[in-house]
């Protein structure tokens, strides 16, 4: 019954957006204001010499570099392979996360057995996994996708597990009184109630997947945005580094918007 801010504005008295005429139509444009300002500041910092061009290239230089790579077609190769890796990694990580999250959320025993281990693993930095993944899974695409999946796994697992554990006791009692049975109460009560948690988890998982890309693409990659960034570091090419950061930001935001869109569609009560 609580309406979320995203779906309804101008109500509840805590939202200032209502003060603007027809705000929903153009409000996304507001999101460009601060980044635009930052770009201007960035440009000024470089041209006034606060940062030397070899340290931080001016915005236009970065755009040129990206454009140059796009023109030769090189950029699309990097973007496509990374998108593919992230996609498969997310699909895998989210799937496994749903399984583990469901099992530990439902069964106290499974939770007691697995949760401490998984909680420990979740804090291991992506880079630390690289040598182990190389050892275990070799240098193929599989190793990269798996590493990205590790990143996507944890937020899904955590959120779903606690989400299922936190389903309103009131509603669980309803399921019990009406003898819904294990399967039906999962299907009708527990899962729908945990869907918002799951989607928060997926959002987090997609974000972490992007974070794990760089580490994954240290595993014998010759292409990809993460490779591009590492390469830029090795070659002392700040324009490439900043360019790949922008690519991360852009695609990260895009995938985030997609998940958010799904969330708003699914969680509409």
């Amino acid at each position, binding site marked *: *019954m609580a309406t979320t801010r995203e779906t309804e504005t101008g109500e509840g008295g805590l939202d200032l957006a209502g003060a603007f005429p027809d705000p929903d139509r153009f409000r996304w444009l507001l999101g460009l204001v601060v980044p635009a300002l930052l770009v201007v500041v960035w440009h000024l910092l470089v041209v006034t010499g606060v940062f030397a061009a070899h340290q931080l290239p001016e915005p236009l230089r970065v755009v040129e570099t990206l454009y140059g790579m796009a023109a030769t077609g090189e950029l699309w190769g990097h973007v496509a392979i990374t998108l593919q890796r992230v996609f498969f990694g997310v699909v895998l990580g989210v799937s496994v996360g749903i399984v583990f999250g469901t099992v530990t959320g439902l069964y106290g025993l499974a939770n007691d057995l697995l949760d401490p281990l998984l909680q420990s693993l979740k804090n291991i930095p992506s880079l630390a996994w690289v040598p182990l993944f190389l050892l275990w899974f070799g240098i193929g695409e599989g190793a990269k996708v798996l590493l990205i999946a590790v990143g996507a796994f944890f937020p899904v697992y955590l959120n779903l597990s606690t989400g299922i554990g936190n389903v309103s006791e009131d*509603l669980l009692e*309803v399921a019990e*009184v009406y003898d819904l049975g294990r399967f039906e109460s999962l299907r009708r009560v527990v899962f729908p109630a945990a869907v918002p948690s799951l989607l928060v988890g997926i959002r987090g998982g997609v974000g972490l997947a992007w974070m794990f890309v760089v580490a994954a693409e240290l595993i014998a990659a010759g292409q990809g945005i993460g490779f591009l960034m590492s390469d830029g570091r090795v070659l002392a090419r700040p324009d490439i580094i900043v360019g790949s950061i922008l690519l991360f930001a852009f695609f990260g935001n895009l995938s985030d918007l997609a998940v958010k869109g799904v969330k708003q569609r699914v969680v509409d009560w």
Partner: protein
Amino acid sequence: MTDTSSPADDSPESTGDSPESTDDPALAVRGLTKRYGDTVALEEVDLAVDDGEFVAVVGPSGCGKSTLLRVLTGLEERFEGRAAVDGVDVRDGGSDGVGMVFQEPRLLAWADVRENVAIGLPGGVDRDDPAAHDRVDDLIETVGLDGFAGHRPGELSGGMAQRVSLARGLAYEPEVLLLDEPFSALDQLTKYEQQDNLLDVWRERGATVALVTHDVEEAAYLADRVVVLGGQPGTVEAVVNVEADRPRERTDKALLAARREITDALGV
């Protein structure tokens, strides 16, 4: 408050021996004490309800009426004393055939009225079956919500939500139906309709019904027997038999007498 007054005709023994009952009473509660931390919600409560009997429970706010129903549905695992349905302890699966309409609507926010009612359909029924659909639509009509089948709980008024919850309970078709103030948010006309509807269901299905209510008129009109709980911790203060024949008139003299008796027991 510790001296529980349990009249002879209410003690489990006597009802257990009454001619129309099978071996065990449908609901048997003996020496039930339920604590929540320091709060004693119920103390040494004895109650027996025959198969097919309609019992109403009244009593002041906070005296443990809802707690009593929760024990009978098996939602409370820790209590002292005995609570059994058809002779089977509620903790050993005795509560399986018991349905309850909760005091709050407790609807699934993401499901529409139809799906919410369908939650109550008994175990064997396939919820996607056309027959099940018809049954659900019937129930929705019975509680006067035709036209709202596709609405979500957030779009319903308080009384409408309560009726969805009621329809869900009726869908379950349990042997024992417990109702916790199911008509409290309804206007008089709707309330009368739903009371009569409940009586029809009870008669047709031969179910055992225990109804918690604050409405003395309602208790007298519906019940065979009215249990008056009192105090905090809750104990059985009195049991009033309503002698009026069925079908009853709301203005029946016997009902008026019962109402007075209940009101007196409540200390109003």
